[in-house]
Protein backbone atom coordinates (compact mmCIF):
# COMPACT_ATOMS: atom_id res chain seq x y z
CA UNK A 1 0.00 0.00 0.00
CA UNK A 2 3.05 2.25 0.39
CA UNK A 3 3.29 2.83 -3.35
CA UNK A 4 -0.32 4.02 -3.45
CA UNK A 5 0.59 6.62 -0.83
CA UNK A 6 3.51 7.51 -3.10
CA UNK A 7 0.99 8.61 -5.72
CA UNK A 8 -1.38 10.22 -3.23
CA UNK A 9 1.25 12.37 -1.47
CA UNK A 10 1.84 14.67 -4.49
CA UNK A 11 -1.91 14.85 -5.13
CA UNK A 12 -2.60 15.93 -1.55
CA UNK A 13 0.34 18.31 -1.85
CA UNK A 14 -1.18 19.85 -4.99
CA UNK A 15 -4.46 20.42 -3.14
CA UNK A 16 -2.70 21.88 -0.10
CA UNK A 17 -0.74 24.34 -2.24
CA UNK A 18 -4.02 25.77 -3.51
CA UNK A 19 -5.13 26.50 0.06
CA UNK A 20 -4.49 30.04 1.34
CA UNK A 21 -2.35 28.81 4.27
CA UNK A 22 0.41 27.44 2.07
CA UNK A 23 1.68 30.35 0.06
CA UNK A 24 5.09 31.51 -1.12
CA UNK A 25 8.08 29.76 0.44
CA UNK A 26 5.93 27.26 2.35
CA UNK A 27 4.56 25.97 -0.95
CA UNK A 28 8.09 25.52 -2.29
CA UNK A 29 9.18 23.73 0.89
CA UNK A 30 6.18 21.44 0.53
CA UNK A 31 7.27 20.62 -3.05
CA UNK A 32 10.74 19.52 -1.87
CA UNK A 33 9.21 17.62 1.06
CA UNK A 34 6.93 15.71 -1.33
CA UNK A 35 9.93 14.82 -3.52
CA UNK A 36 11.82 13.58 -0.46
CA UNK A 37 8.85 11.61 0.92
CA UNK A 38 8.36 9.92 -2.45
CA UNK A 39 11.99 8.77 -2.58
CA UNK A 40 11.75 7.40 0.97
CA UNK A 41 8.44 5.63 0.25
CA UNK A 42 9.83 4.14 -2.97
CA UNK A 43 12.88 2.92 -1.03
CA UNK A 44 10.67 1.27 1.59
CA UNK A 45 8.56 -0.35 -1.16
CA UNK A 46 11.72 -1.60 -2.89
CA UNK A 47 13.12 -3.16 0.28
CA UNK A 48 9.77 -4.69 1.20
CA UNK A 49 9.25 -6.38 -2.18
CA UNK A 50 10.07 -10.04 -2.73
CA UNK A 51 12.05 -10.63 -5.91
CA UNK A 52 9.95 -11.96 -8.80
CA UNK A 53 6.62 -11.22 -7.12
CA UNK A 54 3.86 -8.79 -8.08
CA UNK A 55 1.64 -7.07 -5.54
CA UNK A 56 -1.75 -5.70 -6.58
CA UNK A 57 -3.63 -2.78 -5.05
CA UNK A 58 -6.96 -0.94 -5.45
CA UNK A 59 -9.02 -3.77 -6.93
CA UNK A 60 -6.14 -4.91 -9.16
CA UNK A 61 -5.88 -1.54 -10.94
CA UNK A 62 -2.39 -0.86 -9.57
CA UNK A 63 0.57 -3.19 -9.48
CA UNK A 64 4.03 -3.20 -7.96
CA UNK A 65 6.20 -5.51 -10.02
CA UNK A 66 9.81 -5.24 -11.19
CA UNK A 67 8.95 -2.92 -14.10
CA UNK A 68 6.82 -0.51 -12.10
CA UNK A 69 9.34 -0.51 -9.22
CA UNK A 70 12.25 0.34 -11.53
CA UNK A 71 10.40 3.19 -13.22
CA UNK A 72 8.96 4.43 -9.94
CA UNK A 73 12.49 4.59 -8.50
CA UNK A 74 13.78 6.47 -11.55
CA UNK A 75 11.01 9.06 -11.61
CA UNK A 76 11.11 9.53 -7.83
CA UNK A 77 14.86 10.27 -7.80
CA UNK A 78 14.62 12.54 -10.85
CA UNK A 79 11.62 14.32 -9.35
CA UNK A 80 13.49 14.96 -6.09
CA UNK A 81 16.38 16.50 -8.03
CA UNK A 82 13.99 18.71 -9.98
CA UNK A 83 12.17 19.89 -6.84
CA UNK A 84 15.52 20.95 -5.31
CA UNK A 85 16.33 22.79 -8.55
CA UNK A 86 12.94 24.60 -8.49
CA UNK A 87 13.54 25.50 -4.83
CA UNK A 88 16.92 26.99 -5.74
CA UNK A 89 15.48 28.93 -8.69
CA UNK A 90 12.71 30.42 -6.61
CA UNK A 91 14.82 31.25 -3.56
CA UNK A 92 17.42 32.98 -5.75
CA UNK A 93 14.75 35.02 -7.47
CA UNK A 94 15.05 33.34 -10.88
CA UNK A 95 11.38 32.41 -10.79
CA UNK A 96 8.59 34.56 -9.34
CA UNK A 97 7.65 33.73 -5.77
CA UNK A 98 3.90 33.68 -6.34
CA UNK A 99 3.92 30.44 -8.19
CA UNK A 100 1.43 28.32 -6.26
CA UNK A 101 -0.33 27.37 -9.52
CA UNK A 102 2.99 26.27 -11.01
CA UNK A 103 3.80 24.09 -7.98
CA UNK A 104 0.28 22.65 -7.83
CA UNK A 105 0.54 21.59 -11.48
CA UNK A 106 4.01 20.08 -10.98
CA UNK A 107 2.66 18.05 -8.04
CA UNK A 108 -0.44 16.98 -9.96
CA UNK A 109 1.82 15.90 -12.81
CA UNK A 110 4.00 13.90 -10.38
CA UNK A 111 0.93 12.18 -8.95
CA UNK A 112 -0.40 11.28 -12.42
CA UNK A 113 3.05 9.98 -13.41
CA UNK A 114 3.33 7.75 -10.32
CA UNK A 115 -0.13 6.30 -10.93
CA UNK A 116 0.62 5.82 -14.66
CA UNK A 117 3.71 3.83 -13.73
CA UNK A 118 1.77 1.73 -11.22
CA UNK A 119 -1.25 1.08 -13.48
CA UNK A 120 -2.15 -2.51 -14.21
CA UNK A 121 -4.92 -1.60 -16.68
CA UNK A 122 -4.18 -0.25 -20.15
CA UNK A 123 -7.01 2.31 -20.21
CA UNK A 124 -6.24 3.50 -16.68
CA UNK A 125 -2.60 3.91 -17.69
CA UNK A 126 -3.71 5.90 -20.75
CA UNK A 127 -5.93 8.07 -18.54
CA UNK A 128 -3.08 8.91 -16.15
CA UNK A 129 -0.76 9.70 -19.06
CA UNK A 130 -3.39 12.08 -20.42
CA UNK A 131 -3.90 13.64 -16.97
CA UNK A 132 -0.17 14.19 -16.66
CA UNK A 133 -0.14 15.82 -20.08
CA UNK A 134 -3.00 18.15 -19.17
CA UNK A 135 -1.29 19.07 -15.89
CA UNK A 136 2.06 19.95 -17.44
CA UNK A 137 1.04 21.43 -20.82
CA UNK A 138 0.35 24.98 -19.53
CA UNK A 139 3.71 25.00 -17.70
CA UNK A 140 5.69 24.73 -20.95
CA UNK A 141 4.76 28.29 -21.78
CA UNK A 142 5.09 29.49 -18.17
CA UNK A 143 6.31 33.11 -18.18
CA UNK A 144 7.57 32.65 -21.76
CA UNK A 145 5.19 34.89 -23.74
CA UNK A 146 3.65 34.12 -27.10
CA UNK A 147 6.42 31.78 -28.26
CA UNK A 148 6.13 29.66 -25.12
CA UNK A 149 2.37 29.57 -25.40
CA UNK A 150 2.63 28.37 -29.00
CA UNK A 151 5.07 25.63 -27.97
CA UNK A 152 2.83 24.43 -25.15
CA UNK A 153 -0.22 24.47 -27.44
CA UNK A 154 1.67 22.43 -30.03
CA UNK A 155 2.70 19.96 -27.32
CA UNK A 156 -0.89 19.67 -26.14
CA UNK A 157 -2.31 19.05 -29.63
CA UNK A 158 0.30 16.45 -30.53
CA UNK A 159 -0.16 14.73 -27.18
CA UNK A 160 -3.94 14.61 -27.55
CA UNK A 161 -3.62 13.12 -31.02
CA UNK A 162 -0.90 10.66 -29.93
CA UNK A 163 -2.78 9.47 -26.88
CA UNK A 164 -5.97 9.48 -28.97
CA UNK A 165 -4.36 7.01 -31.37
CA UNK A 166 -3.24 4.90 -28.42
CA UNK A 167 -6.83 4.90 -27.11
CA UNK A 168 -8.12 4.02 -30.57
CA UNK A 169 -5.70 1.10 -30.62
CA UNK A 170 -6.97 -0.07 -27.23
CA UNK A 171 -10.55 0.04 -28.50
CA UNK A 172 -9.56 -2.03 -31.53
CA UNK A 173 -7.97 -4.57 -29.16
CA UNK A 174 -11.23 -4.60 -27.14
CA UNK A 175 -13.13 -5.22 -30.36
CA UNK A 176 -10.75 -8.04 -31.30
CA UNK A 177 -10.96 -9.76 -27.92
CA UNK A 178 -14.69 -9.36 -27.35
CA UNK A 179 -15.84 -9.62 -30.95
CA UNK A 180 -16.28 -13.32 -31.34
CA UNK A 181 -18.55 -14.21 -28.45
CA UNK A 182 -20.70 -12.68 -25.77
CA UNK A 183 -18.05 -13.06 -23.11
CA UNK A 184 -17.25 -9.62 -21.79
CA UNK A 185 -15.20 -10.85 -18.87
CA UNK A 186 -11.85 -10.48 -20.66
CA UNK A 187 -10.36 -7.28 -19.42
CA UNK A 188 -7.58 -4.91 -20.32
CA UNK A 189 -5.76 -5.74 -17.10
CA UNK A 190 -2.10 -6.14 -18.02
CA UNK A 191 -1.55 -9.29 -15.97
CA UNK A 192 -4.62 -10.91 -17.57
CA UNK A 193 -3.54 -9.96 -21.09
CA UNK A 194 -0.03 -11.29 -20.49
CA UNK A 195 -1.47 -14.81 -20.25
CA UNK A 196 -4.28 -14.56 -22.79
CA UNK A 197 -4.15 -17.49 -25.27
CA UNK A 198 -5.59 -15.60 -28.25
CA UNK A 199 -6.43 -12.01 -29.13
CA UNK A 200 -9.37 -12.92 -31.33
CA UNK A 201 -9.86 -11.31 -34.73
CA UNK A 202 -6.42 -10.75 -36.24
CA UNK A 203 -7.43 -7.82 -38.45
CA UNK A 204 -8.70 -5.81 -35.47
CA UNK A 205 -5.81 -6.38 -33.11
CA UNK A 206 -3.21 -5.78 -35.80
CA UNK A 207 -4.89 -2.47 -36.53
CA UNK A 208 -5.04 -1.74 -32.79
CA UNK A 209 -1.39 -2.58 -32.30
CA UNK A 210 -0.30 -0.34 -35.18
CA UNK A 211 -2.36 2.56 -33.72
CA UNK A 212 -0.99 2.04 -30.22
CA UNK A 213 2.66 2.00 -31.28
CA UNK A 214 2.11 5.04 -33.52
CA UNK A 215 0.31 6.91 -30.72
CA UNK A 216 2.97 6.22 -28.11
CA UNK A 217 5.64 7.03 -30.69
CA UNK A 218 4.03 10.46 -31.07
CA UNK A 219 4.10 10.94 -27.31
CA UNK A 220 7.77 9.92 -27.21
CA UNK A 221 8.52 12.40 -29.97
CA UNK A 222 9.43 9.78 -32.59
CA UNK A 223 9.37 10.71 -36.26
CA UNK A 224 7.19 11.45 -38.16
CA UNK A 225 5.21 13.06 -35.28
CA UNK A 226 8.17 14.74 -33.58
CA UNK A 227 7.52 18.41 -34.41
CA UNK A 228 6.35 19.28 -30.88
CA UNK A 229 9.50 18.02 -29.14
CA UNK A 230 12.20 20.57 -30.03
CA UNK A 231 9.86 23.53 -29.52
CA UNK A 232 8.49 22.28 -26.20
CA UNK A 233 11.89 21.26 -24.80
CA UNK A 234 13.51 24.50 -25.93
CA UNK A 235 10.84 26.91 -24.72
CA UNK A 236 9.87 25.31 -21.42
CA UNK A 237 11.58 26.34 -18.16
CA UNK A 238 14.50 23.92 -17.47
CA UNK A 239 12.68 22.15 -14.63
CA UNK A 240 9.67 21.49 -16.88
CA UNK A 241 11.90 20.28 -19.73
CA UNK A 242 13.53 17.88 -17.27
CA UNK A 243 10.10 16.66 -16.13
CA UNK A 244 9.02 16.11 -19.73
CA UNK A 245 12.20 14.41 -20.89
CA UNK A 246 12.99 12.31 -17.84
CA UNK A 247 9.68 11.69 -16.07
CA UNK A 248 6.96 11.77 -18.72
CA UNK A 249 9.19 10.19 -21.35
CA UNK A 250 9.81 7.25 -19.02
CA UNK A 251 6.12 6.86 -18.20
CA UNK A 252 5.40 6.56 -21.94
CA UNK A 253 8.32 4.17 -22.41
CA UNK A 254 6.88 2.04 -19.59
CA UNK A 255 3.50 2.01 -21.37
CA UNK A 256 5.28 0.93 -24.57
CA UNK A 257 7.17 -1.77 -22.63
CA UNK A 258 3.91 -3.11 -21.23
CA UNK A 259 2.16 -3.17 -24.61
CA UNK A 260 5.11 -4.74 -26.39
CA UNK A 261 5.49 -7.42 -23.72
CA UNK A 262 1.83 -8.37 -24.26
CA UNK A 263 1.43 -8.13 -28.01
CA UNK A 264 4.83 -9.01 -29.44
CA UNK A 265 4.07 -12.66 -28.73
CA UNK A 266 1.21 -12.58 -31.23
CA UNK A 267 2.97 -10.73 -34.05
CA UNK A 268 6.66 -9.99 -33.48
CA UNK A 269 7.34 -8.67 -37.00
CA UNK A 270 4.57 -6.05 -37.09
CA UNK A 271 5.80 -4.36 -33.88
CA UNK A 272 9.48 -4.72 -34.81
CA UNK A 273 9.13 -3.23 -38.27
CA UNK A 274 7.04 -0.26 -37.13
CA UNK A 275 9.42 0.51 -34.27
CA UNK A 276 12.57 0.15 -36.39
CA UNK A 277 11.18 2.39 -39.17
CA UNK A 278 10.13 5.09 -36.67
CA UNK A 279 13.44 4.75 -34.84
CA UNK A 280 15.66 5.06 -37.93
CA UNK A 281 13.62 8.00 -39.22
CA UNK A 282 14.02 9.72 -35.83
CA UNK A 283 17.78 9.15 -35.82
CA UNK A 284 18.13 10.65 -39.31
CA UNK A 285 16.03 13.71 -38.45
CA UNK A 286 17.84 14.20 -35.13
CA UNK A 287 21.25 13.96 -36.81
CA UNK A 288 20.31 16.50 -39.50
CA UNK A 289 19.07 18.99 -36.92
CA UNK A 290 22.00 18.49 -34.54
CA UNK A 291 24.34 19.42 -37.37
CA UNK A 292 22.53 22.68 -38.14
CA UNK A 293 21.29 24.08 -34.81
CA UNK A 294 22.96 26.98 -32.97
CA UNK A 295 21.07 26.53 -29.70
CA UNK A 296 22.52 24.18 -27.09
CA UNK A 297 19.19 23.46 -25.40
CA UNK A 298 17.63 22.65 -28.76
CA UNK A 299 20.63 20.46 -29.59
CA UNK A 300 20.01 18.42 -26.45
CA UNK A 301 16.32 18.27 -27.38
CA UNK A 302 17.31 16.75 -30.74
CA UNK A 303 19.65 14.39 -28.88
CA UNK A 304 16.57 13.30 -26.91
CA UNK A 305 14.88 12.55 -30.23
CA UNK A 306 17.98 10.54 -31.11
CA UNK A 307 17.64 8.61 -27.84
CA UNK A 308 13.97 7.94 -28.43
CA UNK A 309 14.90 6.56 -31.86
CA UNK A 310 17.64 4.34 -30.39
CA UNK A 311 15.21 2.99 -27.78
CA UNK A 312 12.60 2.27 -30.48
CA UNK A 313 15.19 0.40 -32.55
CA UNK A 314 16.36 -1.53 -29.48
CA UNK A 315 12.77 -2.53 -28.75
CA UNK A 316 12.29 -3.47 -32.40
CA UNK A 317 15.39 -5.68 -32.41
CA UNK A 318 13.84 -7.68 -29.58
CA UNK A 319 14.76 -10.15 -26.89
CA UNK A 320 18.55 -10.04 -26.96
CA UNK A 321 18.60 -6.24 -26.77
CA UNK A 322 16.16 -6.07 -23.85
CA UNK A 323 18.74 -5.59 -21.08
CA UNK A 324 20.58 -2.97 -23.11
CA UNK A 325 17.34 -1.10 -23.76
CA UNK A 326 16.38 -1.07 -20.07
CA UNK A 327 19.83 0.15 -19.03
CA UNK A 328 19.80 2.79 -21.78
CA UNK A 329 16.33 4.04 -20.78
CA UNK A 330 17.27 4.35 -17.10
CA UNK A 331 20.60 6.06 -17.84
CA UNK A 332 19.04 8.50 -20.25
CA UNK A 333 16.47 9.67 -17.74
CA UNK A 334 19.34 10.92 -15.54
CA UNK A 335 21.42 12.21 -18.46
CA UNK A 336 18.57 14.38 -19.77
CA UNK A 337 17.58 15.64 -16.33
CA UNK A 338 21.24 16.52 -15.61
CA UNK A 339 21.75 18.29 -18.93
CA UNK A 340 18.53 20.27 -19.01
CA UNK A 341 18.95 21.47 -15.42
CA UNK A 342 22.57 22.44 -16.12
CA UNK A 343 21.39 24.25 -19.26
CA UNK A 344 19.12 26.26 -16.96
CA UNK A 345 22.09 27.26 -14.76
CA UNK A 346 24.17 28.21 -17.82
CA UNK A 347 21.33 30.23 -19.37
CA UNK A 348 20.74 32.02 -16.05
CA UNK A 349 24.44 32.96 -15.86
CA UNK A 350 25.20 33.88 -19.47
CA UNK A 351 21.72 34.88 -20.58
CA UNK A 352 21.94 33.11 -23.92
CA UNK A 353 21.17 29.76 -25.48
CA UNK A 354 23.33 30.40 -28.56
CA UNK A 355 26.17 27.97 -29.07
CA UNK A 356 28.27 30.51 -30.97
CA UNK A 357 28.03 33.01 -28.08
CA UNK A 358 29.39 30.68 -25.42
CA UNK A 359 32.99 29.59 -24.86
CA UNK A 360 34.88 28.06 -21.93
CA UNK A 361 32.08 27.79 -19.39
CA UNK A 362 34.17 25.45 -17.27
CA UNK A 363 36.41 28.38 -16.35
CA UNK A 364 33.59 30.71 -15.41
CA UNK A 365 31.20 28.18 -13.87
CA UNK A 366 33.46 25.32 -12.72
CA UNK A 367 30.83 23.07 -11.26
CA UNK A 368 28.08 23.58 -13.86
CA UNK A 369 30.75 23.29 -16.56
CA UNK A 370 31.92 19.98 -15.13
CA UNK A 371 28.35 18.70 -14.78
CA UNK A 372 27.63 19.79 -18.36
CA UNK A 373 30.79 18.06 -19.57
CA UNK A 374 29.92 14.78 -17.82
CA UNK A 375 26.34 15.04 -19.09
CA UNK A 376 27.57 15.53 -22.67
CA UNK A 377 29.92 12.52 -22.31
CA UNK A 378 27.02 10.39 -21.09
CA UNK A 379 24.78 11.80 -23.83
CA UNK A 380 27.29 10.82 -26.49
CA UNK A 381 27.56 7.33 -25.03
CA UNK A 382 31.10 7.52 -23.62
CA UNK A 383 32.37 4.98 -21.08
CA UNK A 384 31.93 4.51 -18.11
CA UNK A 385 28.33 5.69 -18.15
CA UNK A 386 25.32 3.36 -18.30
CA UNK A 387 24.30 4.77 -21.68
CA UNK A 388 27.58 3.46 -23.15
CA UNK A 389 26.93 -0.06 -21.86
CA UNK A 390 23.29 0.07 -23.01
CA UNK A 391 24.27 1.22 -26.50
CA UNK A 392 26.98 -1.45 -26.83
CA UNK A 393 24.56 -4.18 -25.74
CA UNK A 394 21.95 -3.00 -28.26
CA UNK A 395 24.48 -2.87 -31.10
CA UNK A 396 25.83 -6.33 -30.31
CA UNK A 397 22.23 -7.63 -30.28
CA UNK A 398 21.80 -6.28 -33.79
CA UNK A 399 24.77 -8.34 -34.95
CA UNK A 400 23.43 -11.40 -33.11
CA UNK A 401 20.04 -10.96 -34.71
CA UNK A 402 21.55 -10.44 -38.21
CA UNK A 403 20.34 -6.86 -38.50
CA UNK A 404 23.62 -6.09 -40.30
CA UNK A 405 22.35 -3.26 -42.54
CA UNK A 406 20.61 -1.65 -39.58
CA UNK A 407 23.80 -1.99 -37.52
CA UNK A 408 25.90 -0.13 -40.10
CA UNK A 409 23.22 2.51 -40.64
CA UNK A 410 23.00 3.21 -36.91
CA UNK A 411 26.78 3.27 -36.52
CA UNK A 412 27.01 5.89 -39.29
CA UNK A 413 24.21 8.04 -37.83
CA UNK A 414 25.61 7.80 -34.30
CA UNK A 415 29.04 8.83 -35.60
CA UNK A 416 27.49 11.86 -37.32
CA UNK A 417 25.67 12.77 -34.08
CA UNK A 418 28.89 12.29 -32.07
CA UNK A 419 30.96 14.51 -34.36
CA UNK A 420 28.27 17.20 -34.73
CA UNK A 421 27.47 17.33 -31.01
CA UNK A 422 31.14 17.33 -30.05
CA UNK A 423 31.94 20.10 -32.55
CA UNK A 424 29.14 22.24 -31.14
CA UNK A 425 29.35 21.45 -27.42
CA UNK A 426 33.05 20.94 -26.67
CA UNK A 427 34.02 24.57 -27.45
CA UNK A 428 31.23 25.68 -25.09
CA UNK A 429 32.95 23.72 -22.33
CA UNK A 430 36.65 24.31 -23.04
CA UNK A 431 36.86 26.93 -25.78
CA UNK A 432 38.82 30.15 -25.39
CA UNK A 433 36.74 32.97 -24.01
CA UNK A 434 36.96 36.34 -25.73
CA UNK A 435 36.42 38.28 -22.51
CA UNK A 436 38.40 37.82 -19.33
CA UNK A 437 36.61 34.97 -17.65
CA UNK A 438 35.44 35.80 -14.14
CA UNK A 439 35.23 32.69 -12.00
CA UNK A 440 32.04 32.93 -9.99
CA UNK A 441 31.02 30.83 -7.02
CA UNK A 442 27.86 28.89 -7.69
CA UNK A 443 25.23 28.38 -4.99
CA UNK A 444 25.70 24.89 -3.53
CA UNK A 445 21.98 24.17 -3.81
CA UNK A 446 22.08 24.54 -7.60
CA UNK A 447 24.64 21.71 -7.71
CA UNK A 448 22.81 19.20 -5.51
CA UNK A 449 20.61 17.75 -8.31
CA UNK A 450 23.63 17.45 -10.61
CA UNK A 451 25.66 15.58 -7.96
CA UNK A 452 22.70 13.26 -7.37
CA UNK A 453 22.28 12.47 -11.09
CA UNK A 454 26.02 12.09 -11.78
CA UNK A 455 26.33 9.65 -8.84
CA UNK A 456 23.52 7.49 -10.25
CA UNK A 457 24.94 7.63 -13.79
CA UNK A 458 28.44 6.63 -12.79
CA UNK A 459 27.08 3.92 -10.53
CA UNK A 460 25.04 2.47 -13.42
CA UNK A 461 28.17 2.27 -15.55
CA UNK A 462 30.88 1.24 -13.08
CA UNK A 463 29.36 -0.34 -10.02
CA UNK A 464 25.73 -1.33 -10.08
CA UNK A 465 24.61 -2.82 -6.74
CA UNK A 466 23.41 -6.42 -7.05
CA UNK A 467 19.73 -5.67 -6.22
CA UNK A 468 19.65 -3.02 -8.98
CA UNK A 469 21.22 -5.40 -11.53
CA UNK A 470 18.69 -8.07 -10.54
CA UNK A 471 15.86 -5.56 -10.94
CA UNK A 472 17.11 -4.50 -14.39
CA UNK A 473 17.36 -8.14 -15.44
CA UNK A 474 13.85 -8.85 -14.16
CA UNK A 475 12.50 -5.92 -16.23
CA UNK A 476 14.43 -7.10 -19.30
CA UNK A 477 12.95 -10.59 -18.90
CA UNK A 478 9.44 -9.14 -18.57
CA UNK A 479 10.04 -6.99 -21.65
CA UNK A 480 11.01 -10.04 -23.69
CA UNK A 481 7.45 -11.27 -23.13
CA UNK A 482 6.40 -14.90 -23.31
Amino acid at each position, binding site marked *: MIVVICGLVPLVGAMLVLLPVLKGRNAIRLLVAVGLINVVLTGIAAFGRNRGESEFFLFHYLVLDATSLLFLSVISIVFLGITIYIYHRITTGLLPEAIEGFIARVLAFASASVFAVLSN*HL*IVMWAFLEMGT*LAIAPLIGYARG*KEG*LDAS*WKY*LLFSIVGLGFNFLGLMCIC*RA*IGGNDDDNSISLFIDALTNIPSLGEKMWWELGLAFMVFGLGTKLGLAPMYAWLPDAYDNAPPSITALLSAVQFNCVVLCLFREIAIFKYFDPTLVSEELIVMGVLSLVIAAMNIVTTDNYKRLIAYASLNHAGTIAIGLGVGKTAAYGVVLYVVSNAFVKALLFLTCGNIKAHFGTKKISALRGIIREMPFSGLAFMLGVFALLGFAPFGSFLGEVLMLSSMIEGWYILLFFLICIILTVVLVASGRALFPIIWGDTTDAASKKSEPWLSNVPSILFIAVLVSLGIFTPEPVTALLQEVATALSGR
Partner: protein
Amino acid sequence: MLVVEAGNLFIVRAVLVPWLLLRSMGNIQLESSFSLIKKSFAQWFLIFLIILAGSIFGRFLSPDDSIQAFQVGTAAIAILTGFLILANQRHVIGQVVGVITFEGGLTLVELLSKHAIPLEVYSIISIVFIFLLLTLVDFINKFKITSRQDDLLIDGIVL
Protein backbone atom coordinates in the same frame (compact mmCIF):
# COMPACT_ATOMS: atom_id res chain seq x y z
CA MET B 1 -23.73 1.76 -16.93
CA LEU B 2 -26.21 3.00 -19.54
CA VAL B 3 -27.10 5.96 -17.33
CA VAL B 4 -23.42 6.92 -17.05
CA GLU B 5 -22.93 6.58 -20.82
CA ALA B 6 -26.05 8.64 -21.48
CA GLY B 7 -24.89 11.22 -18.95
CA ASN B 8 -21.50 11.41 -20.60
CA LEU B 9 -23.02 11.78 -24.06
CA PHE B 10 -25.79 14.23 -23.33
CA ILE B 11 -24.48 16.26 -20.41
CA VAL B 12 -20.74 16.38 -21.11
CA ARG B 13 -20.61 16.25 -24.88
CA ALA B 14 -23.92 17.76 -25.92
CA VAL B 15 -24.25 20.47 -23.23
CA LEU B 16 -20.91 21.09 -21.53
CA VAL B 17 -18.76 21.18 -24.69
CA PRO B 18 -20.86 23.73 -26.62
CA TRP B 19 -21.46 25.81 -23.47
CA LEU B 20 -17.76 25.99 -22.55
CA LEU B 21 -16.73 26.80 -26.11
CA LEU B 22 -19.39 29.46 -26.52
CA ARG B 23 -18.42 30.96 -23.18
CA SER B 24 -14.73 31.08 -24.00
CA MET B 25 -15.41 32.48 -27.47
CA GLY B 26 -17.86 35.00 -26.07
CA ASN B 27 -16.19 38.19 -27.28
CA ILE B 28 -14.68 36.86 -30.49
CA GLN B 29 -16.30 38.17 -33.65
CA LEU B 30 -17.85 35.34 -35.61
CA GLU B 31 -18.30 37.07 -38.94
CA SER B 32 -17.35 34.78 -41.79
CA SER B 33 -14.92 36.18 -44.27
CA PHE B 34 -14.55 33.18 -46.51
CA SER B 35 -16.24 32.06 -49.65
CA LEU B 36 -18.24 28.94 -48.89
CA ILE B 37 -17.41 27.02 -52.04
CA LYS B 38 -14.87 28.78 -54.22
CA LYS B 39 -11.89 29.27 -51.89
CA SER B 40 -12.39 26.06 -49.99
CA PHE B 41 -13.19 23.74 -52.85
CA ALA B 42 -10.12 21.60 -52.11
CA GLN B 43 -11.31 21.14 -48.53
CA TRP B 44 -14.76 20.03 -49.64
CA PHE B 45 -13.18 17.59 -52.05
CA LEU B 46 -10.93 16.22 -49.30
CA ILE B 47 -13.93 15.75 -47.03
CA PHE B 48 -15.72 13.91 -49.82
CA LEU B 49 -12.68 11.62 -50.16
CA ILE B 50 -12.60 11.07 -46.39
CA ILE B 51 -16.28 10.09 -46.34
CA LEU B 52 -15.67 7.72 -49.22
CA ALA B 53 -12.56 6.24 -47.57
CA GLY B 54 -14.38 5.89 -44.21
CA SER B 55 -17.27 4.06 -45.82
CA ILE B 56 -14.95 1.70 -47.70
CA PHE B 57 -12.96 1.12 -44.49
CA GLY B 58 -16.16 0.25 -42.57
CA ARG B 59 -17.28 -2.10 -45.32
CA PHE B 60 -13.82 -3.70 -45.41
CA LEU B 61 -13.71 -4.37 -41.66
CA SER B 62 -17.29 -5.60 -41.37
CA PRO B 63 -18.25 -7.01 -44.76
CA ASP B 64 -21.21 -9.07 -43.46
CA ASP B 65 -22.79 -6.53 -41.12
CA SER B 66 -23.99 -3.37 -42.83
CA ILE B 67 -25.01 -1.60 -39.59
CA GLN B 68 -21.63 -2.15 -38.05
CA ALA B 69 -19.93 -1.19 -41.31
CA PHE B 70 -21.84 2.10 -41.21
CA GLN B 71 -20.91 2.72 -37.55
CA VAL B 72 -17.23 1.93 -38.07
CA GLY B 73 -17.23 4.08 -41.21
CA THR B 74 -18.78 7.02 -39.34
CA ALA B 75 -16.17 6.76 -36.57
CA ALA B 76 -13.36 6.63 -39.13
CA ILE B 77 -14.81 9.67 -40.93
CA ALA B 78 -14.98 11.66 -37.68
CA ILE B 79 -11.39 10.79 -36.75
CA LEU B 80 -10.04 11.62 -40.20
CA THR B 81 -12.05 14.84 -40.40
CA GLY B 82 -10.70 15.89 -37.00
CA PHE B 83 -7.23 15.12 -38.26
CA LEU B 84 -7.80 17.16 -41.42
CA ILE B 85 -9.06 20.16 -39.46
CA LEU B 86 -6.09 19.91 -37.09
CA ALA B 87 -3.68 19.64 -39.98
CA ASN B 88 -4.87 22.67 -41.96
CA GLN B 89 -5.95 25.11 -39.26
CA ARG B 90 -3.59 27.81 -38.08
CA HIS B 91 -6.11 29.34 -35.68
CA VAL B 92 -6.65 28.17 -32.13
CA ILE B 93 -10.43 27.90 -32.36
CA GLY B 94 -10.16 25.89 -35.58
CA GLN B 95 -7.72 23.53 -33.91
CA VAL B 96 -10.01 23.14 -30.89
CA VAL B 97 -12.82 22.19 -33.29
CA GLY B 98 -10.43 19.63 -34.83
CA VAL B 99 -9.58 18.15 -31.42
CA ILE B 100 -13.24 17.86 -30.45
CA THR B 101 -14.14 16.24 -33.78
CA PHE B 102 -11.25 13.79 -33.32
CA GLU B 103 -12.36 13.04 -29.75
CA GLY B 104 -15.93 12.57 -31.00
CA GLY B 105 -14.66 9.89 -33.38
CA LEU B 106 -12.87 8.16 -30.53
CA THR B 107 -16.04 8.20 -28.43
CA LEU B 108 -17.92 6.58 -31.29
CA VAL B 109 -15.32 3.81 -31.50
CA GLU B 110 -15.57 3.38 -27.73
CA LEU B 111 -19.36 3.06 -27.89
CA LEU B 112 -19.07 0.51 -30.69
CA SER B 113 -16.91 -1.76 -28.57
CA LYS B 114 -18.73 -4.94 -27.60
CA HIS B 115 -16.30 -5.30 -24.75
CA ALA B 116 -17.75 -3.86 -21.57
CA ILE B 117 -15.52 -1.21 -20.04
CA PRO B 118 -15.92 -1.30 -16.23
CA LEU B 119 -17.91 1.60 -14.79
CA GLU B 120 -14.98 3.01 -12.82
CA VAL B 121 -12.76 3.01 -15.93
CA TYR B 122 -15.53 4.63 -17.96
CA SER B 123 -15.86 7.31 -15.27
CA ILE B 124 -12.10 7.96 -15.44
CA ILE B 125 -12.37 8.42 -19.24
CA SER B 126 -15.18 10.97 -18.73
CA ILE B 127 -13.18 12.84 -16.07
CA VAL B 128 -10.17 12.99 -18.40
CA PHE B 129 -12.40 14.41 -21.15
CA ILE B 130 -13.76 17.11 -18.82
CA PHE B 131 -10.20 18.06 -17.79
CA LEU B 132 -9.24 18.17 -21.45
CA LEU B 133 -12.09 20.57 -22.16
CA LEU B 134 -11.12 22.80 -19.25
CA THR B 135 -7.50 22.83 -20.46
CA LEU B 136 -8.60 23.76 -23.99
CA VAL B 137 -10.72 26.60 -22.63
CA ASP B 138 -7.80 27.72 -20.45
CA PHE B 139 -5.59 27.85 -23.54
CA ILE B 140 -8.18 29.78 -25.55
CA ASN B 141 -8.30 32.36 -22.76
CA LYS B 142 -4.49 32.57 -22.63
CA PHE B 143 -4.31 33.08 -26.39
CA LYS B 144 -6.95 35.78 -26.07
CA ILE B 145 -4.84 37.59 -23.50
CA THR B 146 -1.43 37.02 -25.04
CA SER B 147 -1.88 37.45 -28.73
CA ARG B 148 -3.52 40.00 -30.93
CA GLN B 149 -7.27 39.49 -31.12
CA ASP B 150 -7.01 39.31 -34.90
CA ASP B 151 -5.09 36.03 -34.66
CA LEU B 152 -8.04 34.43 -32.99
CA LEU B 153 -10.67 35.27 -35.54
CA ILE B 154 -12.00 32.09 -36.98
CA ASP B 155 -11.87 33.17 -40.60
CA GLY B 156 -9.46 30.29 -41.19
CA ILE B 157 -12.17 27.74 -40.55
CA VAL B 158 -13.29 26.44 -43.87
CA LEU B 159 -15.44 23.53 -42.85
